[in-house]
């Protein structure tokens, strides 16, 4: 079949079963948009900024597990998209982002809206392509989707010059693909697995350290089963929230800088760590030389470069987590006696009792933790939770009762303010039957506020709950703790009327000061079935606790803040 480059792109998306594309047109990608207009395989959603298009595709991918797709034009369209690519790269989201480029004959001439897009995206994508001839396009598209979703997932960027989008060529789109150089390892080495199980059987104080890989590998059921069979207590990273259900008796909670006491103590006192797809981020480990220093480490990851990057590992296993745990389960059943760990579990449960996650509720002013807990109580697993970045993000991770993987969607690795609203739109497109909640801050929400228009136009109801402290709260907290309260450029008392703001876009807004007002606003916002903003005025100076100060040790947490 002979098609032009733009038609090839459309056909490839159809073959890849893409249902929605987020994007923003411009000169270099107009041929593609002309074909978008003519087709009805997928829906194209016009965002109001390219960064938001990529975040929306990212949210879509994280919620659905499928590859998210975004289109942007050359030059500024592409550079606007870079933050989105970097966000997806750091959190290993499968995505294909297509950018227009100036015609091949003009590349290198500093043409209008020309920028070296593959040069810029190279360090923040899993792979990228500059298409030099239309004959390569079908193969490149096929490879891009394959690379994005296999192995350790990640964003792939394809830069297509305008003349290539018009050139005619033969379109053959293979069902299967084999690449000469790229072959991820899925099966764990059986000898290593055997050794790992033996190490677990010999250990007295093992801990499961669950990371985002458990979600990418769709391994939640296997992780739950493994925990149940072995009786080994578990901690989750920010990216792994929801892998174990919140009321699982083995789940101690999140670990790390704002993790709970028992989770961090479990890491500090463990004699064996079983790492299920985490990446030992510095926000998790604290001071490295003191991190889990009594523990031998079993590290399972599909990305070999992740293993041994930060800490030395005694039992490395390269493979797909789901696959590896499946292989571990029968051996674990035979060799591991869960009753052996009872004293260890009892100790950790005592830690949880002594220092649970807590906050001081108040009748005078709303506490952010209450707002999140309350939302969790009212909506539970009916809602998917997206966040922006800051204190509200940490409180959401701490206090929302997650019950399944892909329920919590947040920018963990890059920590991108402005991620929340567009990502929550992507989430809603992926799971229309769920309520899409975006917990955000009065700082973050303004970083992609223009997306209210997209949500109204494309009828994507998202409930934004602004935990409004009139501060860049997280930065303010560090200034309080470590900079003698010099609140340099963090005061946000100057702010818009968020209710009027959302109304001017055609959505609904609520201002909330009390618990009763919150309940009412949440109910009404959900029933409105349109984009909603609940501006919740909270205690301005509330801090996220406990806390491991940057570079501190996990076993030495700041449990409360004293003036």
């Amino acid at each position, binding site marked *: 079949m002979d098609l032009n480059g733009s038609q090839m792109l459309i056909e490839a998306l159809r073959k890849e079963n893409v249902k929605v594309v987020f994007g923003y047109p411009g000169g270099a990608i107009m041929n593609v948009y002309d074909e978008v207009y003519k087709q009805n395989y997928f829906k194209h959603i016009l965002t109001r900024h390219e960064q938001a298009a990529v975040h929306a595709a990212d949210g879509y991918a994280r919620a659905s597990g499928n590859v998210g797709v975004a289109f942007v034009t050359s030059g500024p369209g592409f550079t606007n998209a870079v933050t989105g690519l970097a966000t997806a790269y750091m959190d290993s989201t499968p995505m294909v982002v297509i950018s227009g480029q100036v015609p091949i004959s003009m590349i290198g001439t500093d043409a209008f809206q020309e920028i070296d897009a*593959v040069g810029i995206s*190279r360090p923040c994508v*899993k792979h990228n392509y500059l298409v030099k001839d239309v004959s390569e396009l079908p193969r490149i598209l096929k490879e891009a989707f394959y690379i994005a979703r296999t192995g350790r997932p990640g964003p792939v960027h394809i830069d297509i010059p305008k003349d290539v989008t018009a050139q005619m060529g033969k379109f053959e789109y293979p069902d299967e693909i084999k690449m000469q*150089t790229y072959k991820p390892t899925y099966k764990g080495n059986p000898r290593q697995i055997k050794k790992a199980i033996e190490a677990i059987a010999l250990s007295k104080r093992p801990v499961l350290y669950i990371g985002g890989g458990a979600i990418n590998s769709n391994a939640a059921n296997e992780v739950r089963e493994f925990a149940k069979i072995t009786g080994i207590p578990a901690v989750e990273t920010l990216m792994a929230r929801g892998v174990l259900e919140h009321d699982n008796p083995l789940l101690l909670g999140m670990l790390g800088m704002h993790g709970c006491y028992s989770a961090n103590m479990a890491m500090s006192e463990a004699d064996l760590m079983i790492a299920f797809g985490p990446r030992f981020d510095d926000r998790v480990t604290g001071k490295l030389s003191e991190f889990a220093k009594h523990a031998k480490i079993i590290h399972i990851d599909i*990305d*070999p470069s992740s293993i*041994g*990057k930060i800490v030395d590992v005694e039992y490395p296993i390269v493979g797909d987590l789901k696959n590896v745990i499946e292989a571990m389960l029968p051996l674990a059943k035979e060799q591991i006696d869960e009753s052996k760990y009872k004293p260890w579990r009892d100790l950790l449960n005592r830690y949880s009792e002594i220092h649970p996650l807590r906050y001081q509720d108040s009748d005078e002013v709303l506490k952010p933790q209450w707002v999140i807990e309350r939302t969790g109580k009212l909506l539970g697993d009916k809602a998917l939770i997206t966040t922006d970045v800051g204190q509200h993000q940490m409180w959401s991770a701490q206090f929302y009762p997650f019950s399944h993987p892909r329920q919590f969607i947040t920018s963990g690795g890059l920590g991108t303010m402005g991620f929340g609203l567009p990502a929550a739109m992507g989430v809603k497109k992926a799971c229309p039957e769920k309520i899409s909640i975006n917990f955000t801050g009065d700082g973050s929400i303004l970083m992609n506020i223009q997306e209210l228009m997209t949500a109204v136009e494309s009828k994507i109801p998202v409930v934004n709950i602004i935990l409004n402290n009139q501060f860049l709260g997280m930065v303010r907290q560090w200034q309080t703790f470590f900079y003698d309260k010099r609140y340099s450029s963090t005061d946000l008392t100057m702010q818009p009327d968020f209710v009027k703001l959302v109304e001017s876009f055609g959505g609904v807004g609520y201002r909330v000061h009390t618990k009763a007002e919150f309940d009412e606003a949440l109910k009404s916002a959900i029933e409105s079935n349109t984009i909603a903003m609940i501006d919740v005025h909270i205690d301005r100076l509330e801090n996220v606790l406990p806390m491991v100060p940057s570079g501190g040790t996990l076993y030495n947490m700041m449990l409360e803040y004293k003036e």
Partner: protein
Amino acid sequence: MKEMRRVLSVIVLNEHGVLSRISGLFAGRGYNIDSLTVAPIPKTNLSRLTIITSGNTKVLEQIVKQLHKLIPTYKVIESSAFVEKEMALVKIPLNEDFNGLDAMLKAYNGTIANSGEDFIVVMVADDYDRIDSFLKAVKKYNPVDMVRGGSVALDI
């Protein structure tokens, strides 16, 4: 941890931008490149890079893994048994006294590559540390310019 010198032979798809992926990887992650040579492998779609790098054990392990992780990487050879050679060219004014030059060239697998009106250019090919000593020794002929080619290596 101790810094070590390491020879890496990297086989990659010979395609657009592959060198920038590799040099970008080294630059972005703060790894050292002491020398880098690249050329296509005849009758294939592959190229061979010889990279001389240095770092502690942990860094060297990461370098190899990160190279592997690049999509166009076919193979990373990090064997300790390499035949490694480097070439150098040196330009010497003709008015010098060339006494002993022949013997020196012989000792370093060298020869006179070109002889012009004002200069001769000599070439040598030897182990990289012997190239060091050659370039030191040849100074007595007051060379006006010199260039080294970077190591090439084959695992044995």
